[in-house]
């Protein structure tokens, strides 16, 4: 029988340490919506989403209430739209109409974000991929709920540098189109290498073609819970440190598994995966940076940070894997800047630079995330930043991503407010030296060799 101390522990995690289920994400295949007629395609998409997702939000609320665990987001991911729009879309404007359909349909079913305005261009772009990518700036400026992602590389295919170069310009254009809102369009746009098909976390979520017709994926969180647990073993050795993280990750993930199973059963949609992630929010006490400080670095970015993060990331997985029936998605500690109060502080103190963040992304999920840079950063420099991050993913066989915001009209020293879960960010310095001759080369970087690892 459950003891009173166990009940108190769980409820304190929820009440005081920000334990929550970050998202129930319903993945929906739109492959059966394909039509050569754009009107028909938009109609099919709307009907499919309404049909599959009609109870998502109400079921999420029921589960929250019955178990007393907050479920912060109920979201939808769909098949990458470039795959389903190819026959009907002959211009970027045609693709924008699909973005509008996704936006309004998401509103109808009550979800705050829908992901999948995406293209898979790891090795090359189809005509549809390119049209969709060129539609992104307009699509993100006229919609509120749509998230967009573009896969530009993988370990197996190498990096499509034509797509990387194009994304450098598209990110800049998206920033300009939403310049009146601190370039917030870019906070809903992510460039990926080795993107998983079952990621429940935005902005990079899409419903991959390897997936079933509809699937429930759940993203857990709980940086505050890990931080509080580590406070109790301050100064202890690495064995105890690691065990404490593992034990805590297990408990947090079990809640995610419970919610995933319940949501799957009540919606009659198969359970896909639990994403084992430490996902921070701007709320005080919900910070991955604070865990790194508790492990022993003065501020994230100080020497030792990469090792501390590597340890944290690995223990979270080790604890979580046993707690969940299926694991997938991004699964690791997220280190977004604007969404984590401790990371923001580290940037403000001068402890954390773009280059150190890049190093940190080698050992954790996912990449350069929610980073504000000066609005006058050139397209080619942005492409160079993307290429570097993609190369890390490609060579290390992991997912990497870039979600970077060149804030039009702002420079180093300024602060940008994105609002809500997106938080705020100090504009970070970018290396001023050029890489135009590199990124302007046409073609792709070949896939890396899979032997002679050094």
């Amino acid at each position, binding site marked *: *029988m*459950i*003891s*009173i*101390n*166990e*009940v*108190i*522990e*769980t*409820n304190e995690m929820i009440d005081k340490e920000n334990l929550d289920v970050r998202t129930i994400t319903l993945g929906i295949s739109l492959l059966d919506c394909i039509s050569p007629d754009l009107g028909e395609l938009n109609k099919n998409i709307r009907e499919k989403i309404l049909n599959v997702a009609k109870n998502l939000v109400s079921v999420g609320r029921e589960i929250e*209430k*019955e*178990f*007393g*665990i907050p479920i912060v987001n109920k979201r939808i991911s769909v098949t990458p739209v470039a795959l389903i729009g190819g026959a009907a879309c002959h211009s970027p404007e045609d693709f924008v109409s699909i973005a509008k359909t996704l936006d309004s349909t998401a509103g109808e079913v009550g979800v705050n974000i829908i992901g999948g305005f995406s293209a898979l261009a790891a090795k090359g772009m189809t005509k549809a991929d390119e049209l969709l990518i060129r539609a992104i700036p307009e699509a993100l400026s006229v919609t509120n709920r749509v998230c967009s992602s573009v896969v530009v590389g993988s370990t197996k295919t190498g990096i499509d540098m034509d797509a990387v170069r194009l994304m450098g310009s598209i990110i800049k254009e998206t920033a300009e189109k939403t310049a009146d809102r601190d370039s917030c369009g870019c906070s809903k746009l992510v460039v990926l290498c080795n993107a998983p098909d079952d990621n429940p976390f935005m902005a990079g979520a899409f419903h991959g073609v390897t997936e079933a017709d509809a699937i429930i994926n759940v993203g857990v969180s709980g940086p505050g819970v890990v931080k509080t647990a580590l406070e109790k073993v301050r100064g202890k050795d690495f064995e105890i440190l690691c065990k404490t993280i593992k034990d805590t990750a297990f*408990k947090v993930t*079990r*809640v995610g*598994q*419970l919610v995933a199973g319940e949501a799957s059963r009540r919606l009659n949609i198969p359970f896909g995966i639990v994403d084992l992630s430490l996902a921070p929010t701007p709320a005080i006490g919900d910070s991955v940076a604070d865990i790194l400080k508790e492990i022993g670095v003065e501020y994230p970015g100080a020497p030792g940070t990469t090792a501390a993060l590597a340890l944290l990331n690995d223990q979270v997985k080790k604890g979580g894997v046993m707690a969940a029936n299926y694991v997938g998605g991004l699964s690791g500690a997220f280190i977004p800047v604007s969404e984590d109060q401790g990371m923001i502080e580290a940037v403000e103190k001068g402890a954390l630079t773009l280059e150190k963040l890049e190093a940190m992304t080698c050992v954790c999920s996912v990449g350069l995330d929610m980073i504000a840079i000066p609005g006058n950063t050139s397209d080619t420099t942005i492409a160079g930043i993307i290429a570097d991050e993609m190369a890390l993913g490609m060579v290390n066989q992991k997912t990497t991503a870039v979600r970077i915001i060149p804030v039009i009209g702002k420079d180093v020293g300024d602060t940008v407010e994105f609002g809500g879960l997106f938080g705020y960010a100090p504009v970070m310095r970018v290396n001023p030296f050029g890489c135009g001759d590199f990124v302007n080369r046409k073609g792709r970087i070949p896939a890396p060799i899979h032997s002679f690892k050094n």
Partner: protein
Amino acid sequence: MKKIIITVVGQDTVGIIAKVCTYLAGNEVNILDISQTIVSGYFNMMMIVDIGGSKKPFEDIQHELNQIGDEIGVQIRCQREEIFEMMHRI
């Protein structure tokens, strides 16, 4: 059997347990276990109950216990047992 965990947290005062138990008895909710402790000066009580025999649905019991909590100045929370089982048992 449909097990629910009821927790009561707040300033200790006369009649908290009586009030909750009277409500549960009146709604045919069977108490399986009851324990209490003081944490940081606050009264904490936990009951494991079975609402399988009650005619009232879970959400009504949850809502009405919340109201009783408001009346006597404590926080009363009802949660399905599975969240604790999942977290603390392999």
